[in-house]
């Protein structure tokens, strides 16, 4: 899938730039893009190390397991195949909690660690239902207080930076519900992800 998307993005950009006369801008974009990626990796490296370090402490002390059992009613329903995998459930919990609290920097490292743990258990060629649902949840937003957005609005002169909070809650909840229902519907059908 990503093969096609990546191919499409690049080929269409080249064709489009050719007809728009933006080929020069495109060649700088290639160089800048790869440079930006390295910068991004380095900033990610920092937050990865820091957060995985703290995650290890939380795991060793039993804190993640405590969280996993506290959120079991929700997690077990979303990820039934990992019902008995306390370590994986703990990592999933930590990622979802970081997302909920709006700690984007923490959510990615914690989520990657959960993905690696799920991949280790998986013997199939493709991802499991749980892995798919987990990634889809991470593409939706489940943030309680969108602080960044409020800060942006305030910086641009908004008189009520938090006025759109109910709208954001309703919209993100609706989008999240659509994602989960779609995944759960497909999980029922026949497919290689159900092996």
């Amino acid at each position, binding site marked *: 899938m990503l093969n096609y998307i990546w191919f499409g993005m690049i080929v269409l950009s080249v064709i489009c730039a050719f007809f728009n006369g933006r080929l020069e801008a495109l060649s700088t974009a290639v160089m*800048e893009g790869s440079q930006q990626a*390295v910068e991004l990796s380095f900033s990610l490296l920092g937050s990865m190390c820091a957060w995985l*370090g703290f995650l290890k402490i939380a795991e060793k002390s039993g804190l993640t397991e405590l969280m996993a059992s506290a959120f079991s009613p929700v997690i077990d329903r979303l990820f039934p195949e990992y019902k008995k995998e306390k370590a994986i459930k703990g990592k999933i919990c930590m990622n979802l909690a970081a997302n909920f609290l709006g700690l984007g920097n923490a959510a990615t490292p914690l989520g990657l660690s959960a993905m690696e743990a799920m991949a280790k258990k998986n013997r199939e060629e493709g991802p499991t239902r749980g892995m798919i649902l987990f990634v889809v949840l991470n593409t939706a937003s489940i943030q309680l207080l969108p602080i960044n957005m409020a800060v942006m609005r305030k910086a*641009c002169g908004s008189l009520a930076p938090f006025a759109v909070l109910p709208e954001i809650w309703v919209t993100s909840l609706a989008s999240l519900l659509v994602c989960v229902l779609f*995944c759960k519907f497909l999980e029922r059908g026949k497919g290689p992800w159900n092996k």
Partner: protein
Amino acid sequence: MEQIGAAALPAILGAILLFGFCRGVPVFDTFLMGAKEGVASAIKLLPTLIGLVLAVTMVRESGLLELLCEAAAPVTEALGISPEIVPLALLRPISGSGSSAYTMSLFHTFGPDSETGKIASVLSASTETTFYAITVYFGVCRYKKLYYTVPAALLGDMAAVVGSVLTVRWMGL
């Protein structure tokens, strides 16, 4: 409100550390063990990120986005979505920094408390950078097939576009 955001991170770190320390975990040694795993994961991600960011900057610089907006115009007009929101809806799933910059420009043009400004706020805040999450999350475990991941995620993004327009029109103002 902003103070809550600023306090959340130190409070959580403090709680994790304190809990571990009280339980007799050798906190610094354990931290280092975890951090070491972070290095490996981050290095593993570098090629994925280069491929992704490269493609995203190319799409942005080539004018492909404007072309797609024009192509989508009849559909979005029929749905009552204003033309200024369409680029944001297309940009949001592929580029976090790009969509933030575009939201800022909408705030400057229309004002953050206008209808367009509010829709932009709701849309940006109720979705994540979909393609970044998918490539990065599947980048660490290298699966070729993603099955229904992309359709599910995009369906959620579409729901957010429709939801942001509807909620701002019905709930606010």
